[in-house]
């Protein structure tokens, strides 16, 4: 079952001769429970793609469908609400709220939605990510790896349809990177969580079930689920 589908996705900056095609007709799909990595050099359009998938940015043409909802048809606020229910983000620089402690950061999207967090589930995630002793700490008291683990916990806390990770290890040393990726992978397997990860690091990309390669805004490899390998 496809949880994520894009069709002829085009994102164009500027007009006429000055036009730059950040995305030039991306068609791809991701199945439920899949761990997909998107690789490409810098400027290849992979971050733009992630923003489109997460509903942070609007496409020039084509469409994105997440969990059966076409994102372009949603208003700004509807999109935000959709995002906090269906999409979890993990950013390169963690982006935790500095005034909230670890626990509060994790449950923030759930509470923004006006829901009570599933405590058992949250505790399980916290335990699994090794954050048990840190729940009361503020982000400034955590190492980079710990912060990113908090970000991962936050991303999956609301049981989203898909987790989008943008260079999640970009700011971490290689050992910590391995830890964090391990966590991401375990999360994917244990909770059957769909994950799309962007990276420019081939080695890291190998951890995924499938690799989608982008160059100059086009998919050069791996756009279709089950089309290649697996």
């Amino acid at each position, binding site marked *: 079952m496809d949880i994520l589908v894009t069709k002829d996705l085009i994102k164009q900056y500027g007009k006429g001769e000055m036009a730059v095609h950040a995305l030039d007709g991306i068609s791809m799909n991701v199945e439920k429970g899949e761990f997909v990595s998107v690789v490409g050099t810098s400027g290849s359009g992979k971050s733009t793609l992630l*923003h489109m998938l*997460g509903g*942070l*940015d609007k496409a020039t043409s084509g469409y994105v469908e997440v969990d059966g909802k076409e994102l372009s048809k949603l208003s*700004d*606020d509807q999109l*935000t*609400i959709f*995002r*906090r*229910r269906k999409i*979890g*983000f993990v*950013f*390169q*620089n963690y*982006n935790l*709220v*500095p*005034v*909230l*402690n670890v*626990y*509060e*950061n994790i*449950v*923030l*999207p*759930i*509470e*923004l*939605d006006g829901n009570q*967090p599933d405590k058992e589930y949250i505790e399980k995630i916290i335990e699994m990510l090794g954050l048990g002793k840190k*729940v*009361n*700490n*503020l982000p*400034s*008291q955590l190492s980079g790896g710990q912060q990113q683990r908090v970000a991962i916990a*936050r*991303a999956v806390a*609301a049981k989203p349809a898909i987790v989008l990770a943008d260079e999640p290890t970009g700011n971490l040393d290689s050992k910590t990177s391995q830890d964090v990726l391990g966590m991401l992978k375990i999360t994917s397997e244990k909770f059957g969580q769909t994950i799309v990860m962007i990276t420019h690091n081939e080695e890291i990309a190998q951890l995924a079930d499938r690799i989608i390669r982008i160059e100059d805004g086009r998919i050069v490899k791996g756009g279709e689920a089950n089309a290649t390998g697996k």
Partner: protein
Amino acid sequence: MLRVNNRKTVRRLAGKSYKSNEKRNRTAIIAIILTTVLFSAFFTIGLSLAKSLEYNSMRLSGGMGHASLKYLSDKQYDELTKNPLIKKVGKSYFCGTMEDGVLIKRPVELNYKNKEDIRQAFMEINGEAPVEENELVLDSIALDMLGLEHKAGQKISLLVNFDDHTEQVEFTLSGWYEGDPVFNSSIGLVSEAFKNKYLAGRGQKYNQDYDAYGSCNANIMFQNSSEIEERIQQVITEAGYSIEEGKENSIAYGVNWSYISTGTDGGRETKIAVAAGLLLIMLTGYLIIYNIFQISVIRDIRFYGLLKTIGTTGNQIRRILIYQALRMSVLGIPIGLVTGYGLGLILTPIIAAEMYGKRAFLSRNPLIFAGAVLFSLITVFISCIKPARIASRISPVEAVKYSGVEKSYLKKQKRTTHGAKLYKMAFSNLGRNKKRTVIAVISMSLSLILMNMVFCLSSSFDLNLFIKRFIDVDYQLAEASYFNSDYSQDEDPVSDEFIKAFQSQQGFVDGGSIYTNYSKMLCVEAEGEFEQWGLHYSLQKGDVAEAEVYGMDSFVLDSLKMVEGEFDAEKFATGKYVLLGVATDDQGHPEMETACFHTGDNIKLKECTKSELAPEVEQYDMEKRAYVDKEGNVVRKPILYEFGSEKEYEIMGIYELSWTNMDRSYGSFAVFSMPTSELQKWSEDGRINRMSYLAEGEDELETQLDGFLEQYTSIVEPTMNYASKKVYHAEFDQLKSILVIVGSILSGIIGFIGILNFINSVSTGIIARKKEFAMLRSIGMTVKQLKKMLVYEGIYYLAFTIMFSVSGVLVTSFTMIRPLADSLSFLIFKLTLAPVLLAVPVLAIITGIIPLVSYRSNVKKTVVELIRDGE
């Protein structure tokens, strides 16, 4: 050390940085303008009031000269004023008086004064000083009486009294000056030619013929005001004249008491008040200017870090900042000066009129501008110090990371598992930059506290107490001079016509008169040691002291407030009894310790036909508070009396002296009241002087009665005047409204600064968190939720401000307003929080809207752009 000429470069950098910060500059310049406005208004009002006070006291003492030599001949004048001790001398000739009918109420004395004397007498002539023989300058009051316009060039024909003859003189008005209602007479200026024509040769031998016409006074200014008396005596003796009275070559002199009596009383309070005012303004200015610079430095920290990386020293960076501050000051201070001076000019007369009831002088003292510029610059510099230090000390590496937000958020843990609620997040956000939050809160609170203080003070004003202090009956009718506390028993009675006219009015209920005896002095026998009005009396058996005796109609007697004994009208009417009056203190309590007799005492009143100072009396000793002889010994019987008739009375009781039942001047040894018929017996022909008439009117007809009195005293008998509850009510309202107006303007300005500060803090907080907001939105916070969080933040600001203001109000009310209220009889301390509470809705709107507006104007980019900004 090698001096490198980098001034130009630094200045250019400063200029570039200045230009790139337009929004900050605008706010900072407004802040500097407002600070300067406050300073210059403060100085204008302060110096103008000081000048008005000085003027009023000097004017009462005759002018600004330190001392004067009186009744000089021209020859004496020349000899005496040669003395090198004298710095400046004003020359004034007494030239006659006006004899015109309409001027009876306002006698006009004619003087020829030289330029210096005109200056010393504070006469600011509109037009020209008289030069031609027939030229004249009058004051506005005399002109009004004569029914003339305030305009030079008019022709007036006036009868002038030269003592030996009177003469009709045709004058041309060459100018006029603002008259002072405090004085009962005006001075008309004539020319030297006038003096020479009409008074040729006169006034040259005052010691022999006592002809003051044509004699001259020298009003002398020394280098400074120390040892005035010694120096003026020296001037006289060195010229070969005598300072002793009554000799052929003696010269009469006077010392300006306003220089002597301007003791340091109240000097300390004034200094403290001035210092407090300046500090308050500096604090207000500092809070905002500091905040603006601090924020701008944090925002530009990468720019400063970059400069550091490429080799700019900390000192140079500091200079870059100070250059910018100076540039803003150059723009802001002049605007502030003009506005503030203007504000001062508007407010001064309002305040002065209330404080002195007299003319206000607007100070043009350059100190106003110098002071305002200096203090504004000091405030700007103080405000720059810390931001400049931050900018200059930042390490280039840190600068890249520094956002001024997280760094100060050093809390390690936060124990809660309740999750993240918007209102909690908002609360935490306020704590991220505690200093900035505190500054914004204090800044907003200052004006609230000040405003509340003003209203607390004004609501403590008690109308009834205020009115009671001045009038304890419905109406008091008297001759105009009575109300100027200038009543003399020989003259100025209330006219029968006036009283009859009033009695015939609808609404008149009852009334009665208070009389004084006509030019006859009464004394009372007493024995013992007494302190009365600063005079020490040491009286032995048979000694007497001056008594003030009033005759009162039964209406007045019934209205007296007895504080000792019982008043029995029937017994009193027999004429065997008198009542003793005692004054009340500022709180309205009778000062019983000043009562020299008590109920049941028998006293003996004596008519005094003659009194004079004993020959051995040399002077009055201020320290001993008694008359002393040449050796400084207290003279036991300083005043010698000759007595006429006498009579014994019994004291029936003691009553409170009030503003209406006496002549409004204190100082007699004792005050007695007796029935009118009894007072008449002390006068050979039964004539007594009706000092004032007290009356009761129907409350419903108050307006008509007041209207009648107002009209009667202005049209029918302008020399009569009246007091009523309504008149004092109006005065009370005026006093209160002035307090409120001045207070509101001040707190308005400070409040505006507070709001500016709040805007500044909020928008900086938003700008610094742009990226965080983008992140919050990416993980699912709707714009609505984000705005809600910002509104919560505003609400917390509001809550803190209210908390701070309320505690500030409580502290200031109890430590400042309450003692003040306790010391003034017409104030009853009433704590009010109404102004702060009434300001809450307004503040709520402001604190609710500003974050939203600021968000809208600062966060326009899309989430993606915002996220990318930080990477």
